[in-house]
């Protein structure tokens, strides 16, 4: 799902991270930042995207 609304200005993210989030349709408010003071870096966005891809590929958990 592409994030069409502008990224929230209250989420602290590095410029390249904001750009990549736009390209990959990642919601920055759901990404954990590991940069200085918890700033979201481009690596964090990449990791979040991989995580999302894994979750989408994984079969839905069987009902208990």
């Amino acid at each position, binding site marked *: 799902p*592409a994030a069409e609304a*502008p*990224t929230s*200005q209250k989420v*602290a*993210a*590095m*410029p390249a991270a*904001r*750009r990549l989030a*736009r*390209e990959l349709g990642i919601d920055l408010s759901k990404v954990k930042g590991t940069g*200085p*003071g918890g*700033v979201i870096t481009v690596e964090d966005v990449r990791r979040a995207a991989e995580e999302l891809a894994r979750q989408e590929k994984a079969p839905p958990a069987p009902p208990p």
Partner: protein
Amino acid sequence: MKVAVVGGGPAGYVAAIRAAQLGAKVTLIEEGELGGECTNWACIPSKTLLRAVEVYKEAAEYLQGLPKIDWKAVQGRRWAVVKRLREGIEKLLSMNEVEVVKARAQPAPGRAVKAGGKVIEAEALILATGSVPAPLPNLPFGGKVLDTKSALLLEEPPNSVLIVGGGAAGVELATLFAKVGSKVVLVEVMDRLLPALDADIGMTVERELRAMGVEVYTSSTVLSVDDRGRAVSARLKTAKGEIALEADYVVAAAGRRPNPGPFADLVKTDERGHVVVDGQMRASAGWVYAAGDVAGPPYFAHKAYAQAKIAAEAALGRKAYYEPLAVPAVVFSDPEVASVGMTEDEARRAGYDAKSARVPLSISGMGLITGGAGFVKLVYDGNSGRILGVHAVGRRVSEIAGEAALLVEFGATVEDLALVMHPHPTISELLVEAAELAVGKPTHIAKRGP
């Protein structure tokens, strides 16, 4: 993919280069000079002239008797710099295999533009037609009534000049002419100079211009100007009543308007005439993009560059968005001005626990070496410590505006900044001092009360 770009200023030539780099076949159409307003008639000429008068004026302190400035030499240097930059742009366009058409462009039926008798078909069109000077009400340009471009082309500094408009262009021109001894009167309709910026900035610039001998009238307007051929006589309405004065020239530096020209019918424009664009710089006609002055304020070359890159990338299908947190504003008055991100008021209105920390230039070595007047102010969020804006006045602060933009765009906190070593002695050290003040451990300024 074929892309047409109209306008060869900062927005146009940069859009053309970026589109070409991404593989497009690009045609750029320019009716005047490559480099546009900025390179040929505005940013570069003004800053070249300002640098010359800066050293002239400051050298006077160290000379026994100062010869008159050689204005021919000053203008000569200006042309040398402009020529070199313009030729650089020509070369960059040719190396990027951009076809340049020197003619006036207008829309053609379908997805095409007409220029110089040719019809140029294109899958995407980028409008970068810039802006033009707005005349004062009832005061057409011509004779002794100059726009900023003509003022920068004068072959001798005027003996006296009335500058209307206390924005960036007005205060820069006032600085320029005051330093070579012109009698300068500067009129601004709002209650302070540089009214678009942090209030302390305008007040500092006004005080320093006055110290340089400039007569400043804020909250004032020009009632009438009478061009008498050899000079003009003007009547002003000021806070203290009406006054009459004479000057060699009047310079209207009070504003510019967008210049969509014949393309105004092709796309939706706002009430002032700017092309209306979305976050990807796309206009109402989906194949048309706009960038630079024509796409709306603020009018800065670096904003034009940034929008141009987005427009080119979006035109070529990239998911690029124009959403800067900070568009730096720089004014090359004396002292200079740098303003990035939110003012304290803006931060408060945006819902932050807005705080600010301000340090005077006079506490620092380089501040005193270069003159001493001015300050650096950080605006930050009291909860997170995040830096939201930087507002500075002082000689050389133009060079710390890039760092200021970085701080805001990187989401840096005052604590982060306080811990980064900055070289001594520089103006950039004042950013660290302000950050230390914000965290309660200032070094070169007395600690604020508890």
